[in-house]
């Protein structure tokens, strides 16, 4: 069997047969509808593209902000730690002073 099917028409096709399908009004209507759909699709794609762009810009802005804060922490972080160490050491000194005081005060009681 071949890939094609050959059929032989006994009579010539009558030209009036095509008239049933001849309607330019419908063709024009379908064309206008398809053009309208195309336009809507174009606008939708543009809207999505703008939305994605805005999202990217917002995300970049946030990331920049976060990385900026982290940078500041890195810069000032040691200072705070130093001050914290200082505070701890001073409190230790205070404690030891207290201890000294209390130690000095205790014998006087007895």
């Amino acid at each position: 069997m071949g890939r094609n099917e050959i059929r032989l028409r006994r009579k010539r096709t009558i030209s009036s047969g095509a008239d049933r399908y001849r309607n330019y009004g419908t063709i024009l209507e379908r064309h206008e509808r398809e053009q309208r759909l195309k336009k809507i699709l174009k606008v939708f794609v543009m809207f999505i593209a703008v939305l994605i762009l805005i999202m990217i810009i917002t995300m970049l802005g946030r990331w920049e902000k976060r990385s900026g804060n982290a940078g500041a922490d890195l810069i000032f972080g040691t200072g705070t730690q130093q001050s914290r160490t200082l505070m701890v050491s001073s409190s230790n000194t205070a404690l030891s002073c207290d201890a000294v005081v209390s130690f000095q005060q205790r014998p006087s009681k007895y």
Partner: protein
Amino acid sequence: MSEDEIRQEIEIINRSKRDPRAFGVLYEKYFDRIYYFILRQTDDEALAGDLCSQTFVNVLNHLHQFEFRGVPFSAWLYKIASNEVRKHYRKNKGKKIFSLEEPRVKELFDQGNDGWDEELVEKLIVFMNDLPTEMLEVLELRFFENKDFKEIAYILDITESGAKMRTYRALDKLRKNFNLKIKYDG
């Protein structure tokens, strides 16, 4: 087709690019030809009507892309119609139908009423079934649509020499088995 006619058609096309209603003249002119071209490849009037409508909708949708390349506007229509038929067969995965009119086939084959019997018809159908689709397409355009090789090449997206070669080979095969009236005039 005369140069004057081609120029007139191009004017209508340019007008249609701005106002699609102007295309109505060309639609009326070519509707029958495109319809029967599709009918010959589908053998189904309703389907041919649908594919023909789709062809003209596609033509209107892409009219702004049309450029005159030395072949008549009708060749562009045939090309779009041919693509539409191909798309239909690809989608439905069926065998491609070539529905030929017996009176036209009789004209092409040098067989009188006496020589044209059922046996010969059967033999011809069996023989043509074995021809590749590409050859049948070329034969159809050349001898049923009366297209020249330049147009055939444009419609089927092949070179002009390729179209000539296919026609020559198909006719050579047919000549060996049948009494052919048609000549290869490449």
